[in-house]
């Protein structure tokens, strides 16, 4: 809403600067967006809250100003606009001889009209043109400018019809029929439906109620006689219609925020008076006013003790009563009970219960007076717990492995790195680029890898993924799980002047996974997949039990423009957290020296190392403190289909290990390995 400062001074006497006025409005809740300049004059551009239609007018904003600043004084014009705007012929019903108005829908609560005859609809006088321009509108003609001006002044949208084009001199307000059509003022044909409210004459639709008038009955330079409408329409109906038609007008802006039905006659009369001042034309036959069930306001009791408790600052009963009165409430004070009863003014449909009144009192008293206090009472143990805490620890562990964290969009298009099983689509995506919810973090990792050069990157992400199955209560079939994924390719170290880094390979990536497993205190399997993941290299992938891991499939690598030596893993964190926790247990640290024995065995390549390791551990038992594989060799000197493995064994016990005992322990392991097909070299 544009509020020209020079215009404001016709209504309020104040010596505040434009900035001070803007700050004051901001502190009432009507935020100053900016001070703009029109015709070289300062104009406040004010943001109107969605529940405060009354603020979209000069009168409404002046009321806020006067409530907030007791030193400002209303001019006689504003006083008159506040109190009504009676004209001598208000009681006349003669207009009904010239026009018939009927309301056939509950979504119109009031319809008022006046008839003017013998008008010359020329240019507006300069003061009106200036006012309309300052209010952000383009001057068009006297009748149009005047309807606009009175709307901005009072908040009541008006519409002027060319009386001579009104068939049957009739107005009917009703719901549109399915498939009805009309042409609006902007010369666009509109398809209507039964949810929309229409203004009709005897034969046809002449306006979309509360949104825009029709072309057929538009006032023009040749208009001589004019029927002026001021009506009150249901805010939700107007919003719905406005949305369906994609039409946003100053009228619909106000109606969808609520327009005071009690202000209908005031606006018509203000228009009539101004028209008479400018042209001498008087309205004919008074006001036609159809108002089937006048609005009633209920009384709300306000307890001042509760007011002070909720606001957290002292406010006296007198202050509370004064503030509400200034805002137009009818107030009765009960000193004994320290309470009051207030009836909200007709222009405030947002006041329905005690706490609404408390907000009004707080707003006027000033939120700057609220002191800061910390809550007392029971304090729970704050912060993350359970899985959330575990997730935080796991994220820290991922960072320690050298992976860089990314956070990326969950709304995406389809890519070859989506997990099998399909994506959940948005019903009305804003763009094909974000039409689906991701079901895997791999595609965003790939995208980020490419953004960062496509090679020598190590990235991870933790976030939600969405699968079109299962889902929690009420949300079926929209499954949502927390996921952790990483992508590793190229040099593991940052480029440096002294080469020492390694190119990532599958086992470097596996090492990252294993170290995450240690931090998570959860186990990971590296099983041969029952169903292959099509995103991964078919013979270089593992089923983690709670996820997948492997080298990227060469075809996918090529499609995504990633190196073939790219390694990916993704873990379902909800499943992993729920799996059995591995809690560390204590073992005594023996102080006797350890004994190391290295063995080298020849094994058929078909024997998985895991099998050998199981044999080593179960045979070594408590004596085997640690073991590690320190060489894998295939090639010259090793028979085809075999590989040579070198394994270090470290034995220790509570007591000295003799060489003989060491050899025995080693030999037992060698014998166990032999059962798996391994031959000592």
């Amino acid at each position, binding site marked *: 809403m544009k509020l020209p400062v020079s215009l404001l001074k016709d209504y309020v006497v104040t010596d505040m600067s434009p900035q001070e006025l803007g700050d004051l409005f901001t502190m009432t809740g009507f935020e100053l967006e900016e001070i703009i300049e029109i015709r070289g004059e300062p104009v406040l551009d004010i943001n109107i809250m969605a529940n405060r239609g009354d603020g979209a007018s000069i009168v409404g904003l002046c009321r806020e100003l006067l409530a907030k600043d007791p030193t400002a004084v209303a001019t006689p014009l504003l006083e008159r606009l506040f109190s009504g705007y009676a004209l001598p012929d208000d009681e006349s019903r003669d207009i009904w001889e010239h026009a018939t108005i009927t309301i056939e829908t509950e979504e119109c609560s009031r319809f008022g009209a006046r008839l003017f005859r013998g008008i010359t609809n020329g240019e507006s006088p300069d003061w009106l043109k200036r006012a309309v321009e300052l209010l952000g509108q383009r001057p068009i003609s006297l009748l149009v400018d005047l309807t606009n001006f009175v709307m901005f002044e009072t908040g009541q949208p008006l519409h002027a019809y060319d009386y001579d084009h009104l068939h049957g001199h009739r107005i009917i307000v009703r719901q549109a029929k399915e498939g009805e059509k009309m042409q609006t003022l902007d010369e666009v044909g509109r398809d209507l439906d039964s949810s929309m409210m229409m203004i009709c004459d005897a034969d046809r639709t002449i306006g979309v109620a509360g949104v825009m008038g029709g072309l057929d009955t538009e006032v023009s330079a040749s208009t001589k006689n004019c029927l002026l409408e001021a009506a009150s329409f249901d805010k939700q109906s107007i919003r719905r219609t406005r949305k369906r038609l994609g039409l946003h007008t100053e009228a619909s802006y106000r109606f969808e925020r609520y327009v005071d039905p009690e202000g209908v006659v005031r606006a018509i009369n203000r228009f009539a008076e101004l028209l008479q001042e400018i042209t001498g034309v008087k309205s004919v036959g008074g006001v036609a006013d159809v108002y089937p069930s006048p609005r009633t306001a209920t009384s709300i009791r306000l307890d001042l003790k509760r007011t002070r408790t909720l606001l957290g600052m002292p406010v006296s009963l007198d202050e509370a009563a004064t503030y509400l009165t200034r805002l137009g409430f009818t107030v009765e004070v009960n000193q004994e009970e320290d309470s009051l009863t207030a009836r909200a003014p007709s222009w405030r449909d947002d006041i329905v219960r005690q706490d609404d009144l408390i907000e009004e009192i707080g707003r006027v008293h000033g939120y700057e007076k609220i002191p800061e206090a910390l*809550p007392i*009472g029971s304090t729970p143990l704050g912060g993350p717990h359970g899985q959330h805490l575990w997730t935080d620890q796991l994220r820290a562990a991922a960072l320690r492995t050298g992976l860089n*964290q990314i956070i990326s969009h969950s709304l995406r298009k389809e890519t070859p790195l989506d997990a099998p099983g399909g994506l959940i689509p948005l019903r009305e995506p804003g763009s094909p680029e974000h039409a689906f919810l991701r079901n895997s973090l791999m595609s965003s990792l790939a995208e980020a890898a490419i953004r960062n050069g496509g090679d020598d990157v190590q990235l991870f992400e933790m976030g939600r993924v969405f699968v079109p199955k299962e889902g929690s209560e009420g949300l079926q079939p929209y499954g949502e799980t927390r996921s952790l994924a990483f992508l590793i390719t190229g040099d593991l170290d940052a480029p440096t002047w002294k080469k020492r880094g390694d190119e990532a390979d599958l086992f470097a990536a596996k090492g990252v996974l294993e170290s995450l497993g240690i931090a998570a205190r959860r186990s990971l399997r590296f099983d041969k997949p029952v169903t292959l993941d099509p995103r991964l290299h078919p013979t270089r992938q593992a089923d983690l039990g709670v996820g997948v891991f492997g080298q990227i499939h060469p075809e996918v690598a090529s499609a995504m423009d990633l190196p073939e030596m790219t390694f990916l893993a993704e873990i379902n964190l909800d499943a992993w957290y729920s799996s059995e926790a591995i809690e560390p247990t204590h073992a005594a640290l023996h102080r006797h020296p350890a004994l190391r024995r290295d063995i080298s065995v020849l094994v058929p390549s078909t024997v998985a190392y895991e099998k050998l390791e199981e044999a080593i551990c179960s045979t070594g038992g408590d004596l085997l403190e640690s073991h590690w594989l320190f060489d894998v060799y295939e090639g010259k000197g090793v028979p085809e289909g075999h590989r040579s493995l070198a394994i270090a064994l470290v034995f220790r016990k509570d007591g000295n290990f003799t060489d003989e005992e060491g050899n025995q322990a080693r030999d037992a392991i060698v014998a166990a390995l032999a059962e798996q097909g391994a031959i000592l070299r």
Partner: protein
Amino acid sequence: MDPIAELRQEAESAFSSAATTAELREAEIKYLGKNGLVTGLMKGIGALSAEERPAFGQRVNDARRHLTAAYESRYAALRQGELALQFEQDRLDMTLPGHPPRVGIEHILQQTTNEIKRVLGSMGFVYEESPEVELFKYNFDALNYPPDHPAMDAQDTFYLRDDVVLRTQCTDLQGRIYEKVEPPLRFFTVGRTYRNEAVDRTHGHTFHQVDAFMIDEGISMAHLKGTLGAFARAMFGDEVRVRFRPDFFPFVEPGVDYAISSPKLFNGRWVELGGAGLIHPNILEQHGIDTDRFSGFAFGLGVERIPMMRYGIDDLRNFLENDLRFLRRYA
């Protein structure tokens, strides 16, 4: 010539002619070692008379002491020279860059989230999460949205179906908590929200929000202000002040927009941080909470807003693009 004096002279000359500490060590072993020549002199003591022996022994010991001192001083001199040479050879350009260890960069939004979690957690707010694909009822109905509120438009909200949306605010957690937890309570979340908006420097369809709320006996706007003040000071510095301005959100009454200011920040201007207020009594009643006994507050803010304010980041798109040049700057 006296054999002691002779040997002493010979040893002195060997020590002083040694050019390196290694040569000197050899000479030392030769003369002063366990089986060295000085020790060897003592073998001649047997040929002396009982009267002569003490004087002879004394002289050998004097010679040993003298030679040991001579050796040590020569050694120190040689060692010093050798070290000086070695240090000269060891010289490195200390300004060459170090090799960075393999440590990952934590995303700037994550760092901000961690800070928020630490601060609110320390104030007794329990961290909880809610789904991003959310039931319409938790996103709107449970939060006192009137039917047909503009925020429910498909132009504003992504729908999966009529009753399922991508949550537009993390406030959805409130209804979920009220169903499970009786007051008094304090909770917060940090999560991802979605709005159907065209993407530009200051708008995105995906962003992150903090939402915190508490319910207890006698909770007031002053407690809200105090909590926000403590939070804002923890995030932005000790001198930060909080200002409330009336605003409208369906789920709070009174509703405010809160701004912060500090002499050290934003040129002393008030900068809006988010929305807040007392939890709307309709919401408390809807969830069976006695509004005569309990009241509560809620506040929210955008996570992205914090680093944008701190560092002057002016393009929202930076956050989810994952350009390491951007992320590394705030590592």
